[in-house]
């Protein structure tokens, strides 16, 4: 163990037991009594337990001052790892040694109460995060400044705009002064300007010699904040703690491989599942199937799906396209450009036409989501790997070098 080691994780594993008994899941005392009675009959038969290892034999050492990004798909065990490190849930096996005061920020505004004023919430939230009254007193003005809520300090936070709420919540957390800070995706909230401010604040924190562990789906944030990273996959270390760029490269290669899988076979999806994506096919205007989109040409994205019912009302769909650095390019959504589909029937296919496809050549990833009345039906991250070939966007026969831009926009120049 090196002298500067601040966190040492050895053989960490976490097991969850699913469906503890083969009998239907029972959650009330009455049900338990009933199943108890039923069990007496076949007491010799062992109840089936399905084991699920959220983390398996994870080891690493973090040195003081490191800013470590934890990368992995949904279900890779990132959140479980953070929860164990923050002492929220105990591990099943393994051992962790932590040297220093640790604070975790798994959520923005933990314990915020809508009925309390901004001032009251600063004290409440601060103390939940482990600050003493004296510490909060000392930082109070700074927090209020950072959050830009001076005028509304005595207003209940339920009357705040969501932007103000998030700013205040992050401001409290940002003024913690632990030796180790654990952060989970909290930057996924707030507007772009505020996100930048947050990243800046976290950089300041780490420049003070403090250690940061950071989980995010936002590759760009990890790239700009972290100097080291580790890749988790299915609860195991997929790529050991090393330089951020190396890790990201490894991860993205893996993501692209996965996104080439058939959508119907994907299991890493969320949602109710009445509507499920089955396939995405690219077509040109004439309806012939394409392998890749072409810059400047009209593109039809055809979505095939399964329905559990005969028909579904009021369906919203959105498709977000990212570049290979994980930076969001744009979102195509039926409820924004027009309105949700009123009725979707079994056997329908959905088509989305993008006129004059604006992205320059390269490899892109799509997240897709379908929801009805605010309830997610199906959500798949990195669902589709969209290849874009270069094309003649302006109809002038010139191919635009991609190094200069990622988007092409129609523009007309005049000299008068």
């Amino acid at each position, binding site marked *: 163990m090196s002298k500067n080691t601040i966190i040492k994780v050895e053989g960490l594993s976490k097991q969850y037991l699913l469906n503890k008994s083969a009998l239907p899941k029972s959650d009330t005392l009455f049900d338990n009594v009933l199943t108890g009675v039923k069990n007496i009959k076949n007491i010799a038969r062992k109840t089936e337990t399905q084991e699920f290892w959220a983390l398996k034999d994870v080891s690493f050492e973090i040195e003081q001052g490191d800013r470590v990004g934890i990368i992995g798909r949904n279900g890779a065990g990132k959140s479980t790892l953070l929860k164990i490190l923050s002492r929220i849930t105990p591990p099943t096996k393994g051992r962790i040694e932590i040297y220093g005061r640790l604070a975790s920020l798994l959520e923005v505004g933990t314990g915020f109460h809508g*009925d309390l004023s901004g001032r009251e919430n600063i004290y409440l939230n601060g103390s939940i995060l482990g600050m003493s009254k004296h510490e909060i007193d000392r930082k109070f003005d700074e927090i209020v400044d950072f959050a830009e809520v001076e005028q509304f300090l005595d207003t209940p936070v339920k009357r705040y705009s969501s932007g103000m709420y998030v700013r205040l919540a992050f401001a409290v957390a940002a003024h913690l002064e632990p030796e180790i800070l654990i952060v989970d995706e909290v930057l996924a909230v707030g507007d772009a300007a505020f996100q930048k401010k947050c990243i800046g604040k976290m950089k300041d924190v780490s420049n003070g010699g403090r250690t940061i562990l950071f989980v995010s789906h936002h590759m760009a944030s990890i790239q700009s904040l972290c100097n080291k990273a580790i890749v988790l996959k299915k609860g195991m270390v997929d790529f050991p703690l090393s330089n951020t760029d190396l890790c990201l490269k490894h991860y993205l290669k893996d993501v692209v491989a996965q996104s080439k899988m058939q959508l119907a076979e994907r299991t890493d999806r969320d949602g109710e599942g009445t509507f499920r994506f089955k396939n995405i096919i690219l077509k040109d205007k004439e309806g012939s199937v394409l392998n890749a989109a072409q810059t400047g040409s009209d593109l039809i994205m055809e979505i095939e799906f399964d329905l559990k019912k005969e028909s579904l009302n009021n369906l919203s769909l959105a498709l977000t396209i990212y570049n290979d650095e994980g930076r969001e390019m744009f979102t195509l959504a039926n409820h924004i450009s027009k309105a949700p589909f009123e009725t979707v029937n079994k056997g329908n296919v959905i088509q989305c036409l993008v006129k004059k496809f604006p992205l320059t050549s390269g490899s892109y990833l799509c997240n897709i989501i379908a929801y009805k009345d605010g309830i997610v039906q199906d959500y798949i991250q990195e669902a589709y790997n969209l290849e874009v070939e270069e094309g003649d966007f302006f109809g002038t026969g010139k191919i635009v070098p991609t190094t200069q831009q990622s988007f092409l926009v129609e523009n007309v120049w005049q000299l008068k």
Partner: protein
Amino acid sequence: MNKDKIIIDPNLSSFFSFKELLKYKTLLSNLARRDFLVRYKQAFAGIMWALIKPLMSILVFGYISSKISSTGNTTTNFLYVASAMLLWQLFSNVFNEVSNSIVGNANLFSKVYFPKIVIPLSTILVCLVDFFISLIILVVLFIVSGQSIHWQLILAPIFILLTLINGFGIGLYFATINVKFRDVKFIVPVILQFGLYVTPVIFSTKYYTDRLPEWLHWLFCLNPMVGAIDGFKYALFGGEAIYNVNYFIASICMSFLFLFIGVKYFYKFERDFVDYI
């Protein structure tokens, strides 16, 4: 360089640590503050409700008691019922709030680490504030009726503390069960409703023991609130409130037994709460 060293491993058992609790005293008071502030927000009568609720019970049960037991005069009867009722309501509030506190604050400890015992402890503070407000009723009754007080009054805090111990110990046990079985939410009011009638609130211990067969006396006195309420009455009125010293001591022993069981049970499962909630 580093003062703190944290070790996390699966076998680490946690138990009550006063030192750690002291570090979280700001959280303790802020949680209590939150509960108190939020409770009467947007309620027109506000803090008055802390008076109205016990006052109604005292009026109803005081009337019933003076009609039925017909020993002594109505005023003393009212005073007896009022003092016992206030203490019973303290117990019932603590019991109820503590047993729901862990589930009710799951959003906190599933996101941040802190000793979970802080949550039920903070609810006690809130109940205690309510209790002190409701004591106004008793003070007014004492003044109006011209009831004199004795030296024993200095013992009263002991029995208030005993009541807190009762509510906390039993509440903690139920709070732990509540993590897995939400039935607790329905069971607790039933227990409390039943409890009111087997505790010397409306009638005295003597009234009960006179009417119960001998073998039931011990069972009656295994109710930990018997000791607390009889003791409280003794502190306020002196005299014969403690009907039988053996029963009294038995009841107090039960209080500490319940506390022990509650705390032990709580800490046995405390670390796994997040995985079951």
